[in-house]
């Protein structure tokens, strides 16, 4: 899994970006990870490394302000941390968060089961 060894951090980030993801059962979570894994499969190793580093920064930067890592923050504090990254004055930080957010959204909303749960009508062959 490209996100190893950061699955707990990633799960906390996912649930902050898409709050409903916290309600996914084990199968739903596996589907989400499967989508992300497929998207990352052919991407350069450097990108995967950057992703892991970004997740590491998300986990440990809050220690400075909150005295504890991201995974031990409550939902409101986690939202504040990610909002700070999204609005950061350094464009590279904003772009990094945008990339992570895109991956998370692909994982959650790219699952065929999401369409069913949202009662969407699409005339595809699925």
């Amino acid at each position: 899994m490209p996100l190893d060894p950061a699955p707990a951090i990633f799960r906390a980030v996912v649930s902050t970006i898409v709050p409903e993801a916290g309600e996914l059962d084990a199968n739903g979570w596996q589907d989400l990870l499967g989508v992300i894994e497929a998207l990352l499969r052919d991407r350069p190793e450097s990108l995967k490394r950057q992703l892991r580093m970004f997740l590491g920064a998300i986990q440990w930067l809050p220690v400075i302000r909150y005295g504890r890592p991201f995974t031990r923050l409550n939902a409101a504090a986690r939202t504040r941390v990610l909002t700070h990254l999204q609005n950061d004055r350094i464009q590279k930080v904003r772009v990094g968060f945008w990339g992570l957010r895109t991956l998370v959204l692909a994982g959650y909303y790219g699952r065929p089961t999401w369409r069913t749960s949202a009662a969407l009508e699409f005339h595809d062959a699925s």
Partner: protein
Amino acid sequence: MTRPNLTYDIVIVGSGAGGGTVAQELSPLCNQGLRIAVLEKGPRFRDDEFTGRELEMAGALYEDGGGFLTTDGAMTIAFGCVYGGSTVVYTGTSMLPPERVIRRWDVPGLTHADLESRARKFMDENNAHLLDDDVINQNNKLFVEGCRKLHYEVKQFPVNIKGCHGSGLCNLGCPNQAKQGTDRVQLPRAERNGVEVITRCQVLTIGEKTLAVRVAAKPAGAKGDPSPWEPGDYRIDAKIIVLCAGAINTPALLLRSGMGRNLPRLGHGFTTHPAFIMVGEHPRPIVNSVGHPKSYYVDQFTEAEHFVLETCMYFPFITAKSLAGFGAPHSAFMRAFPRLQMILVLACDEADDFNRVAIDKAGRAAVHYHFQDVAIRGLIRGAIAAAKILFAAGAVRVHMPVARDTTIEAGDATRLEEIAATAEFQPGKVPVSAAHPQGGCGMGTNPGDSVTDSYGRVHGLPWLFVADASLFPNSLEINPYVTIMALAGRVAQRIREEVSALL
């Protein structure tokens, strides 16, 4: 498989609106014994492989899955990489080139009348027409309703469709083969006349009447036919080469081939219509995800405010990615998906000294792009106009990516100008994407002002032509595929006229 004879009279690189057109227009030459090949980097799909599944088809049909990033990572550019190029993944909107734009391009020898007559020929060939009212869905009708209440001049797109089932899946490749792209019309005709199409074939570099190409194997489990050629590297000799790899890959190929030394404008003049979506939530479900997604537009603000509004409807992931922010406000709009009305805001950017196509250390295309003030203003003004339309159509709340608080309730509809005054556009925060890359090999008169002449011939290289959107000297300000076909038809005509001398 037999190893092919690697000498051709004419090689066309790319099979989209430009390459497909050139292939068709030159194909009668096969009857005179000429050998013509189209080299396409992407695969060819069987009809039953167009499943409409979002991530599966995006990964199969688009370069980088539709997520090709500018070098600063602040914008994605979507373009096709498949037999038929981007004509497989557009919505079929068929627009004549605007006279004022062609006049402003000011390319000696290129007239609007000539382009228009060529464009009309291809529109007829591709069955471009206005859809009947009874097949237009609610998402589009609400746009018309909102525009009329505001006295905006709403116009209907001609679309190149035949036998539409209303799947709403145009951007994932029509699963019903209704869209008349080059994969359906021009390329099959060219092949019947004797043109060879070699898929999964990437051109690495070009030299003096030669091409170095790499044919890729079909990956295990992947969609699409294998290439008709065995995987490996080849050298192809060709007396005439026509580049139609699109506004990103054509300049990149020329740069990779060392041609930037004599062509200082190569890669410059890049524009792309940066865009984002505006979403309005209605109190009741509307028909949005089925039916043709893009039937109407408003272009009355193009000259004064630099934006165009178009109806659109995207799939769940693309919609989620295109909404700004995250967390509860973002999820609320996504949960309301069956009640969403969407409008695409496109800014009319302009050719400048910075925005350009280059190559990275590995020779891959790299797009350097900054958001010009004119484009940012266009996006913000376009967002305000779109919000007015959404509220006029009955939306109870609107998502505006550039507003400080991205959710605007109907009660605040009268404060839109005030909201615009405090709007902020931070690259990397506002989700901007584009699907109309243009320029990079602009037409003109000499290497000091351009890369090609008005017939797409590269300055100083009589055997080398360009016939795609990279020829545009500046933004077209509308959906470009018909204009690309018109220019490609013009390039092909010049090649036919001079073929004896060139061979």
